[in-house]
């Protein structure tokens, strides 16, 4: 592991080098309608590189590029339709550890031994991730409660840290865990950067972590997976979810929600995101709906993330704690409030599993 120090011009230089070799997807700040938003976009030309905006957590995630909202899967009679413009490898730049953890989770689901999704795989192939962190905890973030590190993830061989208050070559640190997959001229560019001290960076990161610890009071008291049967039956689901208006925004912006729906356009099969928060998600052809009420849909969403998913994937939660569902929700319904209700019900029932 090595550490390099960069100033803003050197970071732009690095991105310019990378742009020659990769299709770069990076966060930008854009004006859309009445909102100013940070979104991942593909860099189309070198001139856009200085506008890459890293400081805030983007609203969207790499999910939009790996499992797109709407995807043509090809002709019914010809399944070799996997042409996704792969002439260059894709580089996702400036990705937080929670979003990297979400991609890890997608890999578990879509590249599992028994069920490999060729469409997912073809977009996921040839991806490179450069991680990112700074001293500001994104709003409503609770990833630490889900045991996701703030400043590292195994999917990212390179990790960029921005010390927003510092100037010059103390502004950015680049941690290089391995550069073996990088093209030579990029290795060379990195080698020519000023050497940084690993212990100094580690000190900085631990200071930031300590600061974050004071900024969040939320804690998950019971062990995951939550006991499915008991939680399903005993929690008063209506109480914490009563303000839900059923729009599904939480699931659309969620980096880990992957449910989709198939449909046909002539002979072309397509899939598009679906959401368990919609009534149509479970409505039968007969008109019967096993999840008639919104609180039952919430029960499904919460149990999927904190009970079914960890059951199926070695205890790993189906949520990465990024906080997007909370601030994108039109009525600010907080998933932590619902988790808390589950926790309290389990604790009151006297059957709480071992304290974490």
């Amino acid at each position, binding site marked *: 592991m090595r550490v390099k120090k960069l100033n803003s011009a050197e970071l732009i230089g690095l991105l310019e080098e990378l742009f020659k070799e990769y299709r770069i997807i990076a966060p930008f700040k854009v004006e*859309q*309608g009445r909102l100013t938003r940070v979104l991942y976009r593909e860099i189309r030309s070198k001139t856009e590189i200085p506008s890459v905006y890293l400081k805030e957590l983007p609203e969207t995630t790499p999910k939009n590029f790996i499992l797109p909202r*709407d995807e043509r899967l090809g002709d019914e009679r010809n399944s070799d339709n996997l042409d996704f413009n792969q002439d260059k490898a894709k580089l996702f730049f400036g990705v937080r550890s929670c979003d990297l953890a979400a991609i890890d989770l997608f890999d578990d689901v879509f590249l599992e031994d028994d069920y490999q999704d060729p469409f997912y795989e073809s977009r996921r192939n040839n991806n490179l991730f450069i991680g990112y962190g700074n001293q500001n905890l994104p709003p409503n973030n609770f990833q630490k409660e889900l045991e996701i590190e703030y400043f590292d993830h195994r999917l990212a061989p390179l990790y960029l840290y921005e010390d927003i208050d510092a100037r010059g070559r103390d502004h950015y640190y680049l941690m290089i865990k391995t550069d073996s997959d990088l093209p030579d001229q990029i290795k060379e560019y990195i080698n020519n950067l000023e050497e940084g001290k690993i212990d100094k960076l580690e000190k900085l990161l631990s200071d930031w972590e300590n600061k974050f610890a004071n900024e969040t009071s939320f804690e998950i008291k019971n062990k995951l997976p939550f006991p499915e049967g008991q939680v399903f039956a005993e929690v008063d689901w209506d109480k914490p979810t009563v303000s839900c*208006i059923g729009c599904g925004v939480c699931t659309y*912006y969620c980096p880990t929600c992957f449910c989709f729906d198939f*449909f046909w356009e002539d002979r072309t099969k397509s899939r598009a995101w679906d959401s368990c928060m919609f009534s149509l998600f479970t409505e039968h052809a007969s008109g019967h709906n096993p999840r008639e009420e919104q609180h039952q849909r919430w029960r499904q969403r919460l149990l999927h993330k904190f009970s079914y998913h960890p059951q199926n994937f070695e205890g790993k939660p189906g949520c990465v704690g990024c906080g997007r569902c*909370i601030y994108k929700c*039109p*009525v600010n319904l907080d998933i932590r409030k619902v988790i808390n209700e589950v926790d309290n019900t389990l604790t009151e029932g006297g059957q709480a599993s071992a304290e974490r």
Partner: protein
Amino acid sequence: MNNSYKEITEDLQKTVELVFKEEEFEQLLAYSFGEFSGLIEPVIIKEKRDFESKKIVFTEDAYPMLSKYLLKNRDIRQAVVAKPCDTRAIAFYISENIIDRDNLIIIGINGCPGIKENTACDECDTKNPVIADYFVGEPLDESEFAKEIEEIEYLLSDETAEKRKKHYSEEFSRCTQCYACRDACPVCYCDHCFVESNQPIWLEDGSDPEEDMVFHLMRTMHMPGRCVNCGACEMACPEGIEMRSLTSHLYHQARRYFDYRPGLKIDQLSLFSDYNEEDPEPGFLQQEGD
């Protein structure tokens, strides 16, 4: 002068305490800060023991329409904190006979200072409640907010059809079909919305610019004579789509041609039941100035 959020909050906390003392009801709809997020959220208080008046607040971010939540439980007696636009939605419910006046305890906000970033508040013509049992804040004199129809300006109000089409095509290209605009709208309350209808299918699966346009225009078509111009649709949109000027235009046109504004009185006829022979017939696709 508008009341300040702080004054309203203080008055509201006292009034809600009074309501708990004097009234019989099954639940109270109000705003509070989220325990972990600190963001304002609608709360529904069912038990007196869960109630702490200090937690009830009103801020510039109180954009969700509490009136909408009344419809979930039409048969029980409910108390509700209502912005003036909420009271208009409530008056509209009563005029449509979908909720019983006797089942409502309305705590109306006088002299509403408006909601941050909500462009509807710039066109607001109702800053005091039209119907309420309790009032908080000082009422505003009507002369301070009543607007002549000629004074009202809104996005694209003077633009050509081409420019409007371009604007909406661009805006709707971001639509993710979450239908939060519909879900947040206080006067969208059909038991079965065309969006979810599969016999016939009005909207195809998948994202498609034409389908997005169909959805937004169909939603708009259902709105004249119903829209109370509260701006909840636009505030709810996660993509920040500026769609409010469609319904707002119809709101102002209904006023211009028929002197009609929904939800001003509880015994009001609906726009389409209120026909008389003298009504102008501006025509479906008439352009301004024709």
